[in-house]
């Protein structure tokens, strides 16, 4: 357990980290999620610092995606605490998490097929010309310009942003999903197997975008099964096994063989060492 974090909740005060959390972007303590009797996530403690790219690895069903869903408030956690951007957070829903600056590229792409690129980028938080509740008037021009700027920043090439998503290749779709991050100047990007369904070239394209994010100092949590990719792109590897964090490894102190041993359970780290 990370020791520089105060974990008791006293009085009406929300839990606050004691000591210096410095450049920690996201920290979880004892994050737990039960689906009925299934303990999908158990006591997961994790942190990521500014500019850091952290990989989450683990077998299918190890709790990787569940972990992400708790952070991004797509689901409500059963237990545990989350600090983000220097404050204790309990997001009400995914929109609140996004507004706070956590941008997620989901495994099953969260894109609407019949909408074009700007519509998808701004889905759920459209720019409006003036507010009228649900009937607020959309600012198409503003969204288009912000989209082009976001694509520019990530180096994503889309032939025509007014095309609907359904006419795009898997790689282009993934790029659109990733471009959301750049468009909204997120504080933390989470990618859940962003290249799992892509070909070699498209994978390279997405990896390039991830490198660009690294250069720009944007922190990233990357969930991936691809060892080469993880070793190539990340500073640190956190291994999940059976719903628990079982290893926290610096890239330079480990290798593929070592990580696989943790994933399969052949090796175990007793506790979540404060490697960062």
């Amino acid at each position, binding site marked *: 357990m990370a020791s520089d974090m105060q974990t008791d909740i006293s009085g009406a005060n929300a839990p606050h980290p004691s000591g210096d959390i410095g450049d920690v972007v996201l920290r979880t303590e004892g994050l737990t999620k039960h689906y009925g009797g299934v303990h999908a996530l158990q006591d997961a403690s994790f942190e990521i610092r500014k500019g850091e790219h952290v990989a989450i690895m683990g077998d299918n069903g190890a709790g990787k995606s569940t972990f992400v869903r708790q952070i991004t408030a*797509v689901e409500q956690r059963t237990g545990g605490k989350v600090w983000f951007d220097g404050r204790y957070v309990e997001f009400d*829903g*995914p*929109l*609140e998490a*996004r507004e706070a600056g956590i941008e*997620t590229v*989901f495994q*099953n*792409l*969260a*894109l*609407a*097929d*019949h*909408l074009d690129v700007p*519509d998808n980028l701004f*889905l*759920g*938080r*459209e720019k*409006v010309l003036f507010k*009228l509740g*649900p*009937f*607020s*008037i*959309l600012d*198409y021009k503003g969204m*288009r*310009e912000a989209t*082009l*700027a976001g*694509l*520019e920043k990530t180096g994503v*090439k*889309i*032939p*025509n*942003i*007014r*095309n*609907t998503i*359904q*006419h*795009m*290749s898997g790689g282009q779709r993934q790029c659109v999903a990733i471009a959301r991050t750049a468009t909204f100047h997120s504080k933390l990007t989470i990618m859940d197997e962003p290249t799992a369904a892509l070909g070699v070239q498209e994978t390279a394209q997405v990896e390039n975008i991830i490198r660009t994010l690294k250069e720009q100092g944007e922190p990233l949590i990357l969930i991936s099964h691809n060892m080469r990719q993880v070793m190539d792109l990340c500073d640190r590897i956190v291994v999940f096994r059976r719903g628990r964090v079982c290893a926290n490894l610096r890239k330079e102190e480990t290798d593929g063989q070592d990580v696989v041993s943790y994933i399969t359970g052949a090796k175990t780290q007793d506790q979540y060492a404060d490697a960062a």
Partner: protein
Amino acid sequence: MAEATHGIGGLTFDASKRNLPPEAGVAIALVLIVVVFEVLGRILMNDSFLFNTRENIDGIFNVARLQIIILQVSIIGIIALGVTQVILTGGIDLSSGSIVAATAMIAMSFAQVGEINGMENTRAVFGSGWVDLPVILPVVVALACGMAAGLINGLLIAYTGIPPFIATLGMMVSARGVAKWWTAGQPVSFPTESYAAIGSGMMPVFVFVVLAILFHLILRYTVYGKHTYAIGSNEAAARMSGIKVARHKVLVYTIAGLLAGVAALVLSSKNLTAQAGMGMMYELDAIAMAVIGGISLQGGRGSIPGTVLGAMIFGVIISGFTFLRLDAYYQEMVKGAIIVGAVVLDQWRQRRAAAKA
């Protein structure tokens, strides 16, 4: 090729590269159908379907026929505007015809006159104390009734998770029950003059066109419209993007109910009576108009102009058959075939688009 106006660093937005909207196909179909009737008319009837052939009337077009075409589809067209929005979210609304009946019965009860030809109106639903009321009252009642029915649909669908088909099927049966129970099956007649004005002459067309323009603008330019399309396109994505899907669905079904309420007002006013059996099968005709107009039953695709064109195709076919003096039986047979044909065509177009991508 026109160069981009908003290009930054080689990224372009090129309006001319957008795909041809599906509405264009519907418009072509409409023109083709008109041409077919025109040709058939010249051959079989020795008369023109579209153009004025009478010496004693000025004008190029047969205005009377055009008016009838649009007049006879405008009331169901109003319903179709709401049904379109429901289908865009990936849902369906089978209850609109019954909502029209129930709403018309209830609203008309607040719009009755006190005296008929100098005699007291003994058929007034609420007795002689509730007659000759200001027209605003039945209007508000109609809109409220429609909205309430739509709200129930929406709440059922959004919060119990039952399929829209079942929820609105239930409402279809129940609302018809309300329509019959209201006066124990008796028609409600003799509306006040101001109430009768709502649906007189070309008023139904006016209401239809104004509402069509309004909802086209809403779907195209507001957050409501964007979310409606997003939910129909990928509900999970919409949810993950933070759209409050359940709340939005309630709103969409409530608007559909509201439009059914408007249709009830116009229809009962035009007919000068409300009957428990009115609006029968209107829901299916409204769905058919939307489907013919290119609204995908899977949701997420289509537009109000498409539905308006679909309604026009509907009207042209009915009028064309009457013009050719063909029996109504044939009309129904062909109507059915066209609905199925439109869906087949839509699927085919989707597959072709997917293959091209």
